[in-house]
């Protein structure tokens, strides 16, 4: 039996965007979460992840893919790039219902700028209203302004197929690099 190095897929994004939920949609084990209640209005109504979220997808022969969720608050930005280093892929989740979702994406792109040129990456836009086309395309425009071309898809992190669609595009990028 050959043992492949453990792969990891990292979910990142601002607080309350659904990273923990996205991991739970895919994980074969109950996800390890570090969400806490808070009183910081800047973090919104949702609990905030203050450490790492962790999930795991079991593969044949006892191997696995590790799923990591980064802590959302910006004060943990120093951890983001470290967590994503050597990742198979990075899924950036953005909540379109936050005050400035484009700025949220810009913050992520800044934080991962050293990794992105060689990273398999996808961007999921959550809470997209019905008239979604122009909304999603604004995020694509922001990527294009920075010379980046990544999949940008609307996502409902409570739907496994939506989360899988993002991961699928990440795997395709990895496969095409092989």
């Amino acid at each position, binding site marked *: 039996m050959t043992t492949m190095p453990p792969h990891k897929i990292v979910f990142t994004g601002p607080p309350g965007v659904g990273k923990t939920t996205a991991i739970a949609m895919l994980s074969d084990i109950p996800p390890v979460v570090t969400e806490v209640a808070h009183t910081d209005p800047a973090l919104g109504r949702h609990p905030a992840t203050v450490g790492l979220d962790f999930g795991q997808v079991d593969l*044949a022969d006892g191997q696995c893919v590790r799923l990591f969720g980064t802590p959302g608050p910006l004060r943990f930005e120093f951890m983001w790039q470290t967590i994503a280093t050597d990742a198979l892929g990075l899924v950036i989740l953005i909540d379109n219902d936050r005050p400035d979702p484009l700025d949220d994406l810009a913050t992520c792109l800044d934080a991962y700028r050293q990794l992105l040129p060689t990273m398999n990456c996808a961007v999921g836009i959550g809470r997209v209203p019905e008239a979604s086309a122009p909304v999603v395309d604004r995020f*694509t425009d922001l990527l294009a302004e920075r010379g980046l071309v990544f*999949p940008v898809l609307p996502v409902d992190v409570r739907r496994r197929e939506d989360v899988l669609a993002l991961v699928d595009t990440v795997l395709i990028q990895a496969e*095409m690099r092989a």
Partner: protein
Amino acid sequence: MIRLRPTLKLHAKPLADTDIARITTFLRIGRERLGHDWEIATDGGHDVLGHLARPLQYEDVIDALSDLERRLSRQTGMPPPGARFRLRRWPAHALLQVDAERPRLASFLLSARPVDLDELARLGRVDPSACESFVAALMAAGVLDVTENVASRPDAAGFVGGGALGEIRRGLGLR
């Protein structure tokens, strides 16, 4: 200049058997091949699309037809035959939501290594006509880099879905 019958009809589509038969007839014109200059014209001879020097050579005909196919493809917005494609930016959401397969197909077009239509169809496991219409839409939207006359390269479809990444796909329930 002498225009001879039969006149070729050219279509920016794969040749049907009847068209192949027509070309075959065209090439069996005996000594007429040596005695005339030739034109490739639209049906009825309204538009001259190309000239072929005397004596008519098979390779010249094929080259002229290939060139015409590329030119007509551009005019009709269809992907040029044999061309390879790569996204220069992610397509508009309206273009992708037409079909659930399109985000996957677009992802294959992110590769640093451009892919052609046949390869894209194999990678995405979709009908070639679906790829063709999608690529045509991407071309019309101006988000695609098109490279023509490139040497063939190993087909990526052979290794996508295999190895460690294939295991991950199976673990996630992805095809």
